[in-house]
C-alpha cells in the first residue's frame, strides 16, 4: 500500500490545523460542513441576498457538491451518495466568498488553477481538498451522519441548495495546494507533460485542422469561468413521500 500521511480534523477547523496541512496529505473531517456552489454564490455574491444562516458560526468548510438526496417519511432528507463537482468553474466567486463566509477549506473535484491559489487562497489562509477518485460517493455518503438543515431548496433545487451536514470522519480528501499556493495536480501534470511530446513523435498531424485549435499540449481544457448565468426554474420536489 502506498505511503500516505493521514490527518483527521475537527470542523470548524482552526487556522493552526489548516496551516499544518501538507500537499498530498489524506484528510478526514468531523463536525459540520456545508454545500455551496454557483446557485448559492450567485444569490449571495451577485444578487446580494443575505445568507439564510450565520455560516461563520456554523462551519468554515465549503463542499462543492450536490448530494443524491430525497425526502424521507419523517419530513427530513436521506442522503445516498455524495460526490464533488468540478471546482474550476467557481473560481470567479471565491475571493468574495472567503470574505463573506470565512471559509478555510474548500472541498471539490479537480482543484483550481494555481493562480487562484496564490491570489485568493493564500491571503485567506485557505486550502483546497480534492475528493478522491471522484466517484467515491458511497464512502463520502457514509461519512454524513445527518442533514442538519437545508436552505434555498425551493428556489435552487436539490443540486444547488445549501445543505448543512453533520459529518463523522468524512473522507478521504487529498490536500492540493501547499502554503505557497502550489498545486499537486499541476506538479503531476508537469511530470506527465515532460514525457508527452515523445508519444506524438512520428505521428503525422491530420489533414484538416480545427479552427482555433490549441497548439500546446501542456494546455488545459479548463478555461475562464463561464460568464452565462444559469437560470434555475422549478427545481423542487412537488410531493413528499407519504409512506
Amino acid at each position, binding site marked *: *500500500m*502506498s505511503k*500516505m500521511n493521514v490527518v483527521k480534523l475537527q470542523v470548524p477547523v482552526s487556522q493552526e490545523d489548516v496551516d499544518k496541512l501538507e500537499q*498530498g496529505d489524506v484528510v478526514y473531517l468531523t463536525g459540520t460542513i456545508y454545500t455551496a456552489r454557483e446557485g448559492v454564490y450567485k444569490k449571495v455574491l451577485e444578487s446580494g441576498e443575505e445568507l439564510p444562516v450565520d455560516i461563520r458560526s456554523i462551519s468554515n468548510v465549503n463542499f462543492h*457538491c*450536490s*448530494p*443524491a*438526496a*430525497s425526502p424521507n417519511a419523517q419530513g427530513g432528507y*436521506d442522503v*445516498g*451518495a*455524495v*460526490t464533488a463537482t468540478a471546482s474550476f468553474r467557481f473560481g470567479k466567486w471565491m475571493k468574495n466568498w472567503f470574505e463573506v463566509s470565512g471559509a478555510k477549506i474548500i472541498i471539490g473535484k*479537480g482543484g483550481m488553477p494555481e493562480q487562484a491559489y496564490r491570489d485568493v487562497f493564500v491571503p485567506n489562509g485557505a486550502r483546497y481538498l*480534492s475528493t*478522491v*477518485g*471522484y*466517484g*467515491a*460517493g*458511497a*464512502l463520502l*455518503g*457514509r461519512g454524513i451522519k445527518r442533514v442538519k438543515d437545508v436552505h434555498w431548496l425551493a428556489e435552487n*433545487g*436539490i*443540486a444547488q441548495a445549501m445543505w448543512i451536514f453533520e459529518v463523522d470522519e468524512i473522507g*478521504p480528501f*487529498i490536500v492540493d495546494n501547499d502554503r505557497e499556493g502550489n498545486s*499537486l*495536480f499541476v506538479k*503531476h*501534470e508537469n*511530470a*506527465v507533460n515532460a*514525457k*508527452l511530446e515523445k*508519444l*506524438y513523435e512520428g505521428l*503525422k*498531424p*491530420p489533414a*484538416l485542422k*480545427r479552427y482555433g485549435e490549441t497548439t500546446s499540449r501542456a*494546455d*488545459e*481544457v*479548463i478555461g475562464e469561468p463561464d460568464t452565462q448565468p*444559469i437560470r*434555475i*426554474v*422549478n*427545481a*423542487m*420536489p*412537488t410531493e413528499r*413521500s407519504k409512506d
Partner: protein
Amino acid sequence: MSRKPIPQQLVLETATELMSRAAIDIPSDYKQALRAAASKETEDLSCFVIKTMLDNYDVAEEDRRPMCADTGLPRFYVKAGNEAVVEGGFVALEHAIRESVAIGTQQIPLRPNRVHPLSRKDNNNNLGIHAPEIEYTFEPDGDWIDLVTVHKGGLFGTDYRMLFPGDGIDGIKRFFLDTMASFGRRGLACQPAIIGVGLGGNKDTCMRIGKEAACLRTVGDVNPDPEVAKLEQELKDLGNNIGMGPMGFEGKTLVVDCHIEVAYTHTGGMPMSIHSFCHSSRRAAARIHSDGRVEFRDDPQWFTDFYRREGIE
C-alpha cells in the same frame, strides 16, 4: 415459438431492478480489472486512488447506496428477439421503462440530473424530452427481450473529429492521445475507464457505436475483426503509456480496456469518436424470457454477429 406476451409489469419490475444495480453494483469484469490494475500500479497516489475506488464499491454494495452522487444520465438499450411479444406492445414497454427511471430516481435515490438545456427546468425524475434515451435493436428467432441500462455522466472525456483516409492510423492515434491527455488532466474524464472508439459511419452513427463500445462491451472482450482487435490493443497501450493515472496523477492506469466499433462510412472520410465510460462502468443487463424468467447478467451481449452484419441477410 410460443409467442406468449411478456407482461408490462415484469418489464417495469426488471427495469427498476436494473436501475438500482447499475447505480450500486459494479460489474464483476470491471471490478476484477481494476483490482488487477491496483496491484500493478507503482505510483503511490494513483495506487491510493484506485484502492479508495475499490473501497467505495464495497461500501456502495454494503449500504445499498449509489457508488457516486453524480448518478449520470440513465438510459436504456433494448434488444428484442424477433418473436418477442410485449403485453401492450412496445409503447407499453417504453412506458414501463420511463416509469422505472422515475421510480428509481426517487427510491434509490438518484440525483435528478436531467434538465431542459435552456430553462434548466428539472422534472426531478430524470425524465424529459428525449430522456431517457431508449435504443432498439433486434435479433432473429428469440422470444426474449434484453434490457440494458447505462448510467453514464457525460460532461468530460468525449469527443468527435472528422479525420480523412490519408490521416490513417497516425491520425487515429493522435486524436486518441489528444482526447486522453486533455480530459485526463485533474481526472476530469473520471479515469481509469473503458474507452470506446467509433470509427466510420455518419457522425451520429460514429458517436453511437463509440459510446456503445465503451458502455456495452465488457473488459477483455475483443472485436472479431483481427485488424480492429490489434488497434484496440495498440490504443490501450498508448493510453497507458501517457504516464497519467486516476485524477491525472502520475501513473500507468488510464485505460482499463479499449473497444473499437466500425461502421461503413463515406468514401472520402474517416470520422472518429471517443467515449470514456465512467470509472465504475455503471451498466446492468437482464433478459426477460417469454415464460416470465428473468436472468440478470454483467455482459449486455449487445454486439452480436447479426448486429454487426455486412450484407442483406
